[in-house]
Structures are given as structure tokens and as C-alpha cells.
């Protein structure tokens, strides 16, 4: 991998990993708020809402942390997990948008700002960017030697 690609790879891993750790910590701080956000999507059965609210943030923190570890196996596994998560989030947000739900994405935990008509499209756009970053990191991993 060239020096420039290595820098891009590192910057993207720091950004994506940092974002996932931050998002996870925010949700761990107030799982009740995150549970309300999940319920707002009207998709998950009530029995699963709290379980998701408690477990998903830890998954995000672990995957984000693994992305920061300079070991190809960790990076490729976590980028794969982040790709799955982002695909799931995009699907979830898109169905909510198409159904005309006025909800917060809950992506970063505490929802101080009430949802508006732009909340979901902006969240979908952000998740597409994160998905592209995870795909790039995984692709770069083919040439990564650690």
C-alpha cells in the first residue's frame, strides 16, 4: 500500500471507529432514550426493544474499537460488521421515511432536537457515507500488511 493510501486508511479508520465508539457511549449513557427512539420506528416487537437498546451500543463500541487496532483481521472483521450495521440502519431509516414517520434516528443517543422533515433524509445520507467508508476500509484491507 502506498504512503498516501496508508494515511487515507488510517484517517478513515480513526473517523469511523471514533464515530462508532462515540455513538455507542452516548447510547450506553441513556438506554431508555435509545429504546424510545427504536420504538418510534414501529418495527421491532416490544419484547426486543430493550434488548436491542442494551446490546447494540456495546456492539458499536466493540466494532469501533476493533477498527482502531492495527491488525488486519480486526480491521476487516469490524469493517464487515459496520457494513452490515449501516445497511441495516439505511433500510430501517428508509422504511420510516417512506412510511412518513416523524422520528429521530437515535443514531447518537440523546435526542435533544425533535425530529423534522429533514431528519431521516439527513440520517440516511450520513449512513451512506459511513457505509462507503467501511467498504473502502475493507477494500484497502486486501493490500494491508500488518
Amino acid at each position: 500500500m502506498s504512503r498516501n493510501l496508508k494515511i487515507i486508511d488510517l484517517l478513515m479508520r480513526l473517523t469511523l471507529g471514533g464515530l462508532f465508539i462515540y455513538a455507542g457511549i452516548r447510547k450506553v449513557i441513556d438506554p431508555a432514550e435509545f429504546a424510545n427512539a427504536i420504538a418510534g420506528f414501529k418495527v421491532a416487537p416490544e419484547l426486543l426493544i430493550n434488548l436491542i437498546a442494551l446490546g447494540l451500543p456495546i456492539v458499536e463500541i466493540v466494532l469501533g474499537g476493533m477498527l482502531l487496532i492495527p491488525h488486519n483481521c480486526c480491521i476487516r472483521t469490524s469493517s464487515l460488521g459496520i457494513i452490515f450495521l449501516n445497511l441495516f440502519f439505511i433500510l430501517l431509516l428508509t422504511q420510516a421515511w417512506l412510511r412518513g414517520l416523524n422520528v429521530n434516528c437515535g443514531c447518537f443517543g440523546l435526542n435533544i432536537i425533535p425530529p423534522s422533515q429533514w431528519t431521516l433524509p439527513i440520517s440516511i445520507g450520513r449512513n451512506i457515507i459511513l457505509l462507503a467508508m467501511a467498504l473502502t476500509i475493507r477494500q484497502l484491507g486486501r493490500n494491508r500488511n500488518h
Partner: protein
Amino acid sequence: MNNALKKELILLCLISALSFSLGVAADTLRKQPLGFTYRKPLLKLLEKQHSFSTPAEDQPISKEIRIIQIDELRKLLDQDRALLLDVRPQIFYQLGHIPIAQSFPKESFEQAYGAKKTKIVAVIDQGKLIIVYCSGEHCADASTVASKLAELGYGNLGIFEAGWDAWENAGLDIKTEL
């Protein structure tokens, strides 16, 4: 599927299983565990309300926090029998709110309460209801504010659970401050 991908998927399954177990285990250590069953913010409040401090017994004030539906809210407002508080952030109040509502942002509860205390006491003395609302039924802010007011000893409280979304979607009159 190649072996490397298979290993990564197995590792992801393990990470997920461990993370969910850790999340559930850590929840039991919280002061207020989330528990396994999801309850809407309003339900939590209704379960909690029996523990609130209550006004003196000779006061004809209801301790129950009532859930107000949109038709009842319209009737109460038409008859001037309620004080309506919008607990969303100030900027969203300014962008649009129920015409008679007054801004009472949850984020600055102390400040808003300080400014509105006299009005709230007067409203209670007149036997009127104090009704709070936020953006919608999964928004916890209205329950939080109602809970704080109840803890301060106020009765005659109501929550317009369906909130701003329902009012706006019903095509009813709105007011902006911009």
C-alpha cells in the same frame, strides 16, 4: 464463501452475542435498570406517580396525571380550562406550536418554572388543568416535565400524549413566532 469470510462472520456472531450479554448484565448494575420489557415514557410515569409527594388533602386537586386526547384538548382550550405548556426546545416552539401553548422547554426547566411559577399556581387555584406536550408519543420530554411538576407537589396535570405531530397532522391551527 471463502474461509476468511467464514471466520469473520463467526467472529462477528461471537462479538454480538458477548456484547448483548454484557449489555444486559451491565443493566442490572444500574440504579434504574431498563429491564426486559419496553414501556412507553407515559406508562413509566403513570406507574411512578403514586410515589410523588401530594398536596394537602383538603385541596380539591387531582393527583392523577391524565392522558389527554386531541378532541378533549381542543374542548378544554376552547373553554379556557387549561394551561398548555410546550416542552420542546424553544426554537421548535418558535417554528410552530399550538396557538394557546406557552413555551416551557424541558432543557431549561428551572428557568421556565421560575418564570411561570406564579401563572401555574394561579391556574391550579382556578381549578384548571396544566397540560404538557412534546413532539409525539415516543417523546419522553412531556412525561419528564409532568413528573417534575408532580414531584414539586402540583396536581391537576395532564399530558397530551400524541403531541405536536398529531396536532399538526390533524391540520389544526398553528402559530409561529418567527
